[in-house]
């Protein structure tokens, strides 16, 4: 049930307003309805009961008068003095009975009992039908449709009953149409106005949320046009100022990282050149290896500091081909890395970041297991890059730890195996920067599988 309820601000306001208004209007309408009905019945039934009482009075008052029947000429009422009521007890319409007693009281007549129902339709007589020209017959019948008969029965003080049939007009069935229309119109106008106000609040809030989501930490800090009510406008202005500040801080961080990178690369480059002329040659080669390790550490650190910063544009890319070029680099260096052939796997990614992540994972596999197998395949909602090896794997309780920066399972072996200690951290950060994940799992047949899961984006 809950999931059918609207979640947005405008939806909830609309729903609450609509329900509350509906209840209020329904109560209002039913009050009007009862009142109108009461008035209308009083207008119709009042004169009829009065006439009935008057006639009953006349019939009862004159004991010499032999007449037991009274016909009203024009109004077509028929009153009969009798010993019994034409109505059985218990079928009466209480409201009509009450009105009958009211009229009796007004005329000073005491009734021992009173029964009354509103009887059915009034049929035009055969004669009237014949006398009406055919073209006017419809109109005539419609006039009869608007009539009804009231059957009234009252017991006088002497025990006799006056039974009467009185023709009156029927309460207009369309009487409530106008109040109903008015109620609906009010409902729609108020609801529309509320929705308009809600939209004025909700739309800028939605813009704000969208801008916050789009904020990728690059210098193009999203600015939201301030609109809507003053409170919302203030929130938007505050957000704009904050995203500008955050953007400026991140820009500053980037400039700093760039400067650090530049300032460290220059002495490294200088060392690298000098190492070429170091004697003996093995010593020089060892220096070159160390310098290269430092360089890759520097690159990893800078790259890690910049992930999630959106320095690189997201682009639709065949991830399989991208990873294939990384595998090709390893093959060119004669390293045993195998790429499982497969189809295209397209996702919107930052190619250089993912290339670096894949390179780190393959490097790890080669380093710890001597060889790597790489496969890229499409998943239901994205792309997965699998890098598997037949190495010793990682103890289960260490699987989470190894993704932390500079964490090493065996500190004693770290110098031997080298690496920046940032490889997995960077791979994880790269995956997360895309809204994906890095999954490490020991394979049942031995070895480790590292999987980079990437959502497809809007590719």
């Amino acid at each position, binding site marked *: 049930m809950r999931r059918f309820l609207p979640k947005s601000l405008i939806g909830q306001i609309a729903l609450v307003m609509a329900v509350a208004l509906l209840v209020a209007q329904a109560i209002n309408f039913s009050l009007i309805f009862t009142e109108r009905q009461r008035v209308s019945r009083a207008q119709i039934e009042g004169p009829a009961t009065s006439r009935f009482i008057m006639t009953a009075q006349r019939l009862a008052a004159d004991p010499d008068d032999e007449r037991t029947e009274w016909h009203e000429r024009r109004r077509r009422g028929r009153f009969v003095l009798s010993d019994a009521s034409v109505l059985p007890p218990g079928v009466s319409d209480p409201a009509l009975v009450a009105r009958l007693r009211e009229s009796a009281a007004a005329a000073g007549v005491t009734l021992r009992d009173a029964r009354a129902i509103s009887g059915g339709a009034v049929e035009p007589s055969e004669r009237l039908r014949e006398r009406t020209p055919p073209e006017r017959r419809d109109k005539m019948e419609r006039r009869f449709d608007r009539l009804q008969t009231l059957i009234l029965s009252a017991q006088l003080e002497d025990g006799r009953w006056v039974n009467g049939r009185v023709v009156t007009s029927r309460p207009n069935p369309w009487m409530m149409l106008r109040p109903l229309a008015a109620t609906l119109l009010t409902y729609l106008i108020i609801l529309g106005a509320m929705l308009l106000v809600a939209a004025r609040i909700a739309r800028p809030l939605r813009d704000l949320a969208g801008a916050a989501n789009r904020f990728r930490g690059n210098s193009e800090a999203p600015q939201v046009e301030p609109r809507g009510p003053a409170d919302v406008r203030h929130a938007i202005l505050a957000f704009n100022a904050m995203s500008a500040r955050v953007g400026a801080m991140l820009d500053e961080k980037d400039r700093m990282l760039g400067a650090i*990178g530049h300032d460290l690369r220059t002495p490294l480059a200088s060392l690298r050149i000098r190492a*070429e002329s170091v004697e003996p040659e093995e010593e020089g080669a060892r220096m070159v290896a160390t310098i290269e390790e430092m360089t890759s550490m520097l690159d990893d650190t800078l790259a890690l500091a910049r992930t999630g910063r959106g320095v690189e544009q997201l682009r639709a890319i*065949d991830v399989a081909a991208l990873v294939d070029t990384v595998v090709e680099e390893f093959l060119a260096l004669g390293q045993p890395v195998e790429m499982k052939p497969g189809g295209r796997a397209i996702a919107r990614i930052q190619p250089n970041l993912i290339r670096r992540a894949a390179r780190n994972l393959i490097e790890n596999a080669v380093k710890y297991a001597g060889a790597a197998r790489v496969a890229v395949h499409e998943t239901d909602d994205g792309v997965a890059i699998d890098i598997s090896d037949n190495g010793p794997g990682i103890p289960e309780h260490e699987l989470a730890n190894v993704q932390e920066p500079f964490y090493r399972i065996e500190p004693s072996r770290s110098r031997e195996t080298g690496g920046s200690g940032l490889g997995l951290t960077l791979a994880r950060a790269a995956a997360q920067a895309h809204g994906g994940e890095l999954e490490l799992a020991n394979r049942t047949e031995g070895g480790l599988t590292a999987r980079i899961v990437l959502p497809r984006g809007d590719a």
Partner: protein
Amino acid sequence: MADEPHILLVDDERDIRDPLAAYLSRNGMRVTKAENAAVARQVLSAYAIDLVLLDIMMPGEDGLSLASHVRATTKLPIILVTARTEETDRIVGLELGADDYVSKPFSPRELLARIKAVLRRVNETGGVVRAPDTDSYGFGPWVLKSGERELVDADGVAIPLSTGEYNLLHALVTHPRRVLSREQLLDLSQGRELAAFERSIDNHISRLRKKIEENPSDPKLIKTVWGGGYTLATDVRKL
């Protein structure tokens, strides 16, 4: 050109300038050093320089600005050196007309090899520097963008290529409907990167086919010419 090629080395860092100059001198080059763009301009007007080795990040006038000055006034080949590795720098550098690009820290041996390769190419073309290609080529459903060095399909999805694959494909799309022997392909595609071509042309062709052919076992774009080599069997639109 004299027997010893004359290199102008422009770098604001003495720690790079001096050892690099020494290394290049030991390897048969004549090196003139300049610590900034102003000095470099003086040297350029005073000496017959064969190649300019240029650091991008320098205080004052930077390397890119000097590179465009050199490109505008001379035909000298330029190799850019940078401390950054961002792709955009490389593209900007190559668009300015630099012939090659290395990033710090670089292997001096590799730099030497690149200098020699660029000089050899200049020699072969009679002193005319071939400006690096930044055009885009449309063929079949594909577009090969030389500036970004990437292949894009009709939907705008980029298909990353290794350096070797890119160079080979570039050679093919710039010579459409011509039969290119393996030797010609090697010559045409080896220009910029040296390490990339340890694996055979055939191997790269089959990798390329997997990426761009609808059915790699029945290629429609890159066709094998019996006894001759390979040909790009489609028209190429320059975009």
